[in-house]
């Protein structure tokens, strides 16, 4: 009997412990449900399957744990709850961005669809500029640009994400640091807006030109970056404006991708050259040729650059601007030649041109003597260039090296 009493009391203690534990754990979800105003219907929609006729609401009665989840439980016609639902199931922020950006992209693509003409059928006999498969109406291009701006705004609002940056991340385009990140969001938005407006205006000019860029169109296109510069100057401090433009302007891109391909500038040099070029551009009249005053001012700007780069680097910079030097460099690159050969020939070009110039200026020489002297300079130069480049490369180079022909030009036919 004593043993039975001990056993029964033990069971009582164990059960009392369990009951106490249950009391501690159970109230929370109930409170939350009450707070959210959740009822049986709510609970049922959480596990509802895709309806195949009338809408089916399922009521859960008991408590066997089973894993059951359907995507429809997070989907919504409204982006905000859709995002909230994805977050609630711990979907990573990056995946949420991927889903929403792709969705918003498609939403705007669909908005454009009614305006879009289908690609033109390929007719092999259709000639010239009219042979464009994506030629759309002005309304289409206008809507495309406007939707682009709207799309960026929507995504910013929904996700706090920068559409361009996200695309850059996805496709591996250069993800650059925003030089204006220290500025208030409002200022940055204004800058983005001005940039988008600029892009819109530029595409409008191209659209109107229909692939035919005449000098009037060129004038219009030239005026645009200046307008953007002026508009940005009203929003940014001079230092911020410079930092922004040295990275993003057409001028800076042209330097990076074209003009300075043969120079290998340091950051300091790049900024100094950019400043010179930008100052020179701003001195050029918007239409027509530069006048004398602007040319004089450009000389001053150039002198400042020379001082900033130093004598030797300035020389190298000038050389890198020379089309002939660029041609030589590309030839050397494509045929696996050393850059020293390029430098050697460029040096030779300078010497040969100076020697030819002296011969031409020498008034003591007769016409025959002058001609013979120039022919000798040309022959000697060609020989040295051939030795440096090799026979085949010289033959190629000769086609483009007008300076070689001009050392002793062939007489003009009568």
């Amino acid at each position, binding site marked *: 009997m004593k043993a039975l009493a001990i056993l029964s009391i033990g069971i009582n203690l164990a059960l009392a412990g369990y009951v106490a534990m*249950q009391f501690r754990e159970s109230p929370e*979800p109930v409170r939350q449900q009450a707070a959210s105003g959740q009822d049986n219907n709510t609970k049922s929609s959480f596990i509802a399957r895709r309806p195949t006729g009338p809408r089916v609401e399922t009521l859960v009665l008991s408590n066997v744990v089973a894993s059951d989840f359907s995507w429809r439980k997070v989907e919504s016609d409204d982006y905000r709850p859709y995002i909230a639902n994805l977050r609630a199931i711990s979907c990573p922020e990056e995946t949420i961005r991927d889903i929403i950006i792709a969705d918003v992209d498609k939403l705007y693509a669909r908005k454009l669809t009614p305006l879009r003409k289908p690609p033109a059928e390929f007719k092999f006999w259709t000639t010239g500029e009219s042979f464009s498969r994506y030629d759309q109406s002005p309304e289409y291009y206008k809507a495309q640009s406007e939707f682009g701006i709207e799309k960026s705004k929507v995504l910013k609002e929904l996700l706090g994400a920068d559409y361009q940056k996200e695309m850059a991340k996805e496709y591996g385009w250069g993800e650059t640091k925003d030089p204006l990140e220290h500025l208030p969001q409002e200022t940055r938005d204004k800058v983005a807006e001005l940039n988008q407006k600029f892009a819109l205006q530029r595409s409008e000019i191209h659209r109107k030109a229909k692939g035919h860029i005449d000098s009037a169109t060129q004038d219009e296109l030239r005026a645009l970056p200046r307008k953007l510069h002026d508009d940005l100057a009203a929003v940014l401090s001079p230092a911020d404006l410079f930092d922004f433009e040295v990275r993003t302007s057409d001028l800076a891109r042209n330097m990076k991708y074209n003009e300075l391909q043969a120079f290998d500038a340091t950051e300091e040099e790049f900024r100094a050259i950019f400043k010179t070029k930008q100052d020179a551009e701003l001195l050029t009249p918007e239409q027509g040729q530069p006048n004398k005053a602007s040319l004089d001012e450009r000389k001053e700007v150039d002198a400042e650059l020379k001082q900033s780069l130093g004598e030797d680097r300035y020389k190298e910079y000038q050389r890198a601007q020379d089309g002939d030097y660029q041609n030589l460099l590309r030839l050397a690159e494509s045929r696996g030649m050393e850059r020293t050969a390029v430098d050697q020939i460029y040096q030779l070009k300078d010497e040969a041109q100076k020697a030819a110039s002296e011969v031409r200026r020498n008034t003591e020489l007769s016409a025959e003597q002058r001609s013979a002297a120039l022919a000798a300079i040309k022959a000697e130069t060609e020989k040295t260039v051939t030795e440096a480049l090799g026979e085949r490369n010289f033959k190629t180079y000769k086609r483009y090296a007008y300076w070689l022909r001009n050392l002793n030009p062939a007489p003009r036919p009568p």
Partner: protein
Amino acid sequence: MNTRAIVLLSILGNIGLLACAIHLHRSRKPSLPSYATAQAQTANLAKALPSRATETKVEVVTNDVVAEFRWQQIESANCKAYVANLRAIDCPEETVRDIIAADVNKLYAQKRKALWPETKANEYWKKDPSWRSVSATETDRQAKSRALEKEKSELLKSLLGVDPIKERNKENGYEDSWDWLYSFTSEEKKQQLRDANESYDQKLQALYRVSMRDDDDEKEIRKLRREKLAAAAGILSPQEFEEYELRTAQIAVQLRHDLDGFEPSAQEFREIYKLRKAREDDLAYVSDPDDEDGQDKRLKAVTALEQQIKQMLGEQCFAEYEHAQDHSYKELVRALKQNDLPTMLANKAYEMKTGAEQAARRVRSDESLSPEQRNEALKAIRGETEKGLSQQLGENVFSSYKRSGGYWLNNLVPRETTRRP
């Protein structure tokens, strides 16, 4: 109290506590806070959803409680498993594609980046090695980059059955250029053509990037293009091949440019193409200025070709063909098109040009005129021609044309040179 009473009371306690424990156990809810939050949000979502059906049925399900769902349950480092998991929770195929395409894009963006380790996006002052470079290293990187693109597309197709990037481009109105170019044949043959062209295109790209090509390079390019065409001929039917050739062969591409302003019929284009193709090597540009034989041979080939074209087109049509070889005529047609005007106006304007040039030649060779009289006469011709053109084309088109193809108007009158003191 004796032991019996204690045991009795204790057993009663056992029963009471057991009943209480069972009740508590049965009434317990899944309890993770985020589960409840998710339920609450889903409830709101359910209210916001438009009703898909007019009637609502309540179905009672027993013994089925949902465990908390976490994204980690479906996410996987293995793409195939990830896709399967997403499909298993009824994620719409379109969303599956969006998720996977973004992941795969990012993966390959990293791989592509690794090909150019020295390129740092923030180093705005540094030149981009992938830009215009023709070095062996760069050619190799470009080839690897193209291979990665192909690999990516194949991976996406194997995972999803379609290439979602291509599909997305289509939705945005950008049809794959291959699909468009080869719309005359089946999907299977399109793929065969892509595969066959790939190695030729790689070799050709390497040569195209050489900005200073010599005649040997040009010969090699022509040889590769012919081989590429021969490979396509092995895949396509004769009719398909003709279409392929007229769409893609370099001679046809060049012809579409050269005949701008002529607007040939399909048959005329086909015939001129055949004539040019038959003389392809003889018509090739001779770059060496000292190669007189080569220059002469080319000139003869050009003359013979023009004779053949004249015979084929007839006198009048050939005159139009000849106009179209003149840059100033092409510019005129472009200016008209730009202003949505009929291009037939170009012929009348071109007649004015030839008339004015003939008149100017007569004035220049008239020995009886003093330099001043000659200059005045030439100015009068130019003034008259400008007036006529302006009337014919309208002020806008004429002004645009004058700044592009109308340089010949300035050449009617010799430029006045200012002598230095």
